[in-house]
């Protein structure tokens, strides 16, 4: 049984890893050819991301967009999650639902809604519209992690602080904020990584005026193959692995994803 289980895990692991192994392989080809196993070894395609102005601009655009839209998502999610935790207001749950909806529906719907909206209001193509669009699209992630964080707070702690005369503001700063900080960080991290990789919303809102890395790869794919696509893919995988690895290292990843907390 144990051997069977190992075999099953191995098979799934192979299925998940195989395309990435081949991509990692072609990314170190010496010449601009799509061959595997790679012929020769060169890291020049990784250098291309930073030295070629087109790829570098796309990288900067992607990082800026991800960093600012994840911040916006957090700024929307934090007061909402706090309000839902602090107050009894069942009708306010509608905003929770609105926060989760963009992520649950097929993304092309949110993308098209935002496209018609920006086109109608006349802001279509301006780079800040992508930040707002991604901020709304990914608000689900900090909202979910924060709701989890708030529900984990022991209310007697907060009550103790209030009995000693602390007002809402002081309680939030001294008790609540330190307790939800890990959830705040992981919510930001999830939104950041997903925004970095997002294609359709970015494409439909600013695709004609700005290139993020996923847009750049898609546009480049139409003109054939360059190994830089492979190196960018590997780079993005590494970024995701580092970010999620850190979340797992400093937080409780299984709990964040729905398991009970670790038995000590």
């Amino acid at each position, binding site marked *: *049984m144990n051997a069977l*289980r190992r075999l099953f*895990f191995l098979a*799934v692991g192979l*299925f*998940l890893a195989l395309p990435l192994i081949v*991509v990692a*392989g*072609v990314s170190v080809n010496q010449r601009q*050819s*799509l061959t*595997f196993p790679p012929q020769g070894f060169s890291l020049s395609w990784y250098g291309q991301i930073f030295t070629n102005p087109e790829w570098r601009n796309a990288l900067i655009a992607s990082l800026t967009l991800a960093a600012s839209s994840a911040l916006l998502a957090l700024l*929307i999610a934090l*007061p*909402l999650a*706090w309000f839902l935790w602090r*107050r*009894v207001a069942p009708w306010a749950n509608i*905003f929770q639902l*609105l*926060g989760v909806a*963009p992520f649950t*529906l*097929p*993304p*092309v*719907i*949110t993308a*098209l*809604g*935002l*496209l*018609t*909206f920006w086109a*109608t209001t006349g802001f279509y193509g301006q780079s800040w519209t992508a930040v*707002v669009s991604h*901020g*709304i699209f990914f608000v689900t992630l900090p909202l979910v992690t924060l709701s989890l964080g708030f529900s984990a707070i022991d*209310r007697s702690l907060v009550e103790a602080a209030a009995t000693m005369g602390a007002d*809402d503001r002081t309680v939030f700063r001294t008790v609540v904020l330190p307790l939800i900080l890990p959830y705040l960080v992981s919510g930001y991290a*999830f939104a950041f*990584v997903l925004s970095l*990789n997002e*294609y*359709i919303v970015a494409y439909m809102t600013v695709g004609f005026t700005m290139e993020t*890395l*996923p847009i750049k*790869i898609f546009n480049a*794919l139409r003109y054939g193959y360059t190994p830089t696509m492979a190196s*960018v893919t590997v780079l993005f995988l590494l970024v*995701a*692995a580092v970010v*999620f690895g850190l979340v*797992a290292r400093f937080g409780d*990843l*299984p709990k964040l*994803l*729905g*398991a*009970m907390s670790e038995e000590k």
Partner: protein
Amino acid sequence: MRREPPQRLADYGPLFFPAGMLTLFFVVPFATMIAVSFFQRQQGGFYTPDFVFDNYARFLSLFFGKVLGFSLFLAIAVAIACVVLGIPFTYLLARSKRRIQVIWLVALLCILSLSEVMIGFAWSTLFSRTAGLTNLLVWLGLVSQPQALTPSFGAVMTAMTYQAFPYTVLVIYPALVRLDPTLTEAARTLGASPIKAFFTVVVPALRNTILATLIMVFIFALGSYLLPQLLGRPQHWTLSVLITDQAVYQSNMPFAAAMAVFLVLVSLALVGLALYAGRQKEAK
């Protein structure tokens, strides 16, 4: 500090920014899209406010019916493949050591967050003639010539299963990790084999979770727009691809909006139907 209803207007303060943002940039765009779906299209990519059903009437064509049928079929096939593969996998994962769970979860999150463009590119490389899987078969002596496996239905299906698999696992994970282990232990003590215990105890106990997961993955797969384009032939295009195509390349916003509204309705209707079916079963 007990939870209490807001009393003064100032108590609503924290809600203003989130509610305002979500209304202005999600509800209003959604309404705009619905409005545009009734607009009249003009030549050259423009459209004028109107109230016509022309855009919806275009659904009544054989072409559209085929695309819709194929989209639904593909999404169902992907959902079934993912659930069949994902449930035993997640079941075993939930029973592994915490450390092993964390490693798998990090890996799954990495793939889940990977851009659809990159997944499409990775699979097109793996299915290519020069760097692909068939080279391995040539090396093993199974085939004589390497060949490209794209574009094909199999390629679209494989890549979409790949994309949706991590999502499936993360959707089922909370239910399976909280499943009472004494349930299967009891079955094992009574003499059931592990596989029999899985099918007679775990699967029935999770019937509703499985149904809910099928729906979630189905909607997730309906949203795939790049993989059918990158790995399939035009007959493998889905509704999502068609919407993007109409909106961006054909500049027919009203028709794209009408299709998007239709896609929302289809998704919601199927969710409602499945939830209803689940409740019926439970009542019995």
